[in-house]
């Protein structure tokens, strides 16, 4: 009862439901049903959003480019799946007796591969250009991980949100440079994803995402 208002303990974070499970799973509790439900729900919403066309971005240009709402809505499932990146409270992470690098690899792998798989699933059943859609999803997921790792807390949203505002604002980035929206820049998008992966390898594996 002597706790300060707002202070949270590890026990608070775990919640009553996880009390009986192994402490590792509980602390890194990304296998909770609520997490999976939120993630699946978010991807279903993304799937629906690919069916809507909002002619905001290049209103005068018709042709083959992915629609803005399909890309912008990727932010939600990516933010939810980035929840797995958090390793736990600061003291627990700093005081770890063993290296956390393997777990960090695993978490990053889950985050990126779940995103890639879900985006591929949607691309199979909806009319979006598949390559650029999956590429966008993976790139956003990687940027989210990078931002979270660099700035913690809201860093991932700040980074991906800024990138999305810049590429989504009408005519701000000319069509010939907008790798997020035009399938013909697939090679450039692939290089961008690769560069982000290299950055993550340098940053994420050293800087844990606390929380």
């Amino acid at each position: 009862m002597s706790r300060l208002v707002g202070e949270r303990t590890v026990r608070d974070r775990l919640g009553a439901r996880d009390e009986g499970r192994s402490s590792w799973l509980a602390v890194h509790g990304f296998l909770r049903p609520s997490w999976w439900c939120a993630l699946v729900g978010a991807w279903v919403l993304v799937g629906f959003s690919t069916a809507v066309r909002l002619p905001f971005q290049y209103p005068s240009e018709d042709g083959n480019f992915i629609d803005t709402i399909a890309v912008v809505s990727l932010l939600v499932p990516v933010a939810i799946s980035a929840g797995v990146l958090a390793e736990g409270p600061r003291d627990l992470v700093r005081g770890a007796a063993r290296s956390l690098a393997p777990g960090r690899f695993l978490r990053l792998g889950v985050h990126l591969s779940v995103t890639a798989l879900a985006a591929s699933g949607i691309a199979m059943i909806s009319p979006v250009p598949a390559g650029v859609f999956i590429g966008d999803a993976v790139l956003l997921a990687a940027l989210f991980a990078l931002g979270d790792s660099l700035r913690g807390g809201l860093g991932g949203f700040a980074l991906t949100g800024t990138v999305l505002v810049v590429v989504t604002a009408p005519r701000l980035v000319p069509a010939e440079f907008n790798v997020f929206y035009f399938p013909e820049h697939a090679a450039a998008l692939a290089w961008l994803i690769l560069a982000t992966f290299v950055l993550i390898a340098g940053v994420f594996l050293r800087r844990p995402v606390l929380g």
Partner: protein
Amino acid sequence: MTLVPTRWGLAIALAIGLATAAMVGPSWAWWLGIWGTTHNVLSDSVLLAGAATSAVGAIGSSRVHRGGLAQLGRGAARSPAAVAGRAMTEIWLWIAAGYSAVYAVCLTLTGRQATVGRPEMAPWVAALALLALCLSLGWALGRRLSARIAGPLAFVGWYGALGVLESFAPQLMSAVTPIDPRFGAYDGVPAWILGVKAAWLTAATVGIVLLVSGSGRRGMAVLWLTSLLVAALVFVGPDVLEPRKGTRTQECVGSADPEVLGMVCLPRVKGFLAEQWLREQSLARGKLGALVDQDVVYVVDEPDPDALTEARQILDSRGINATLVPVSSTTCHSGQAQFDVTGWRRCQVEDAIGYRRGEGPRDFGVATPADVLTRWGFERLDLSLDGSAGPGAPILDPGTVDYTEFESAYEALSTASSVSRDAWFTRYRAQIRGGTLTAEQLAEIGS
């Protein structure tokens, strides 16, 4: 005591400012110099600024509710609604600062050029009220979610909701929100309509604040009253547009003597472009000679019959008897506020040669006489030949199009004296305009 530390406040203002600037910056040529379109594009920018605002609201709310401040608030002497309202007002002030900073920059830039009209207060107030509503919706969303999820969800939610409204119910959006694509250079939404819009947006914000802070019954009452205002706007809003005074009035600038400068008639709202029109007109006449009309007065910016009549009256009163040529804004200057140099130069060449746009694909393999003339005109006016001179520009690049047959004719066209060239243009004017020029006729240049 402040809830938001200054550095966070500045970050919020910067984020909103950037989101607004990202919307208005790239389209500067469409609004700069005209008050009506400046206000319009600033209202439109609430698409991204509103998404960012609701994300800020959701994150702020999540931090307040999870960080313990909400519990502290329950022990306050004031009502929970007052506590929540105060917290949101503080965030809103930073948001308003970011949005207004960009607003002020845009108005200042337009004020330096505009020739008619004045800045208006009502669109700004209504946009700020809309941002307040975004903030309160984000606040409501962030109460039960973590900031990491609430922020993105609010951002996507607002973007998607407004996007769906704009795409599928544009009339409803114009009627009840300050985002109204119909108001622009010549027509505006009356200030009282924008006032009513600001009123319902503010009332809805208050209702949501009451609702989420435990005053459910009062909140619902306010929202019901708000819905009456919205219903009234749905019936009244779509039809109420008022013309902006003096913007459509024609003015004719320049000299009737074609040798000197030429003349152009344009609506007063575009008066600040008159000098550029005259400069370009005289340049084109000098460079293209008799290929373009010499004894006409252009009436620019998609004139309707009334505008043409008005221009004719002005010319008659000055004793000028020239042919009036209406210039289409869609093909010749893209309907922009700023002068479109490329569009107008291209239009002069293409109209003179009888190029018709949008008639389907042409075979660019082998050049036609019209291609040769167009290439010459484009080169004289420094337009690019690779198809990059505006939407639908012809590709006339010697690397793409085969000019072998006309090499000597092109050489003659380029090197002929202006007198002999003008004589040739005058002789074959009808064929050039009609697109029936033959290779033999083209070969006569310089002979």
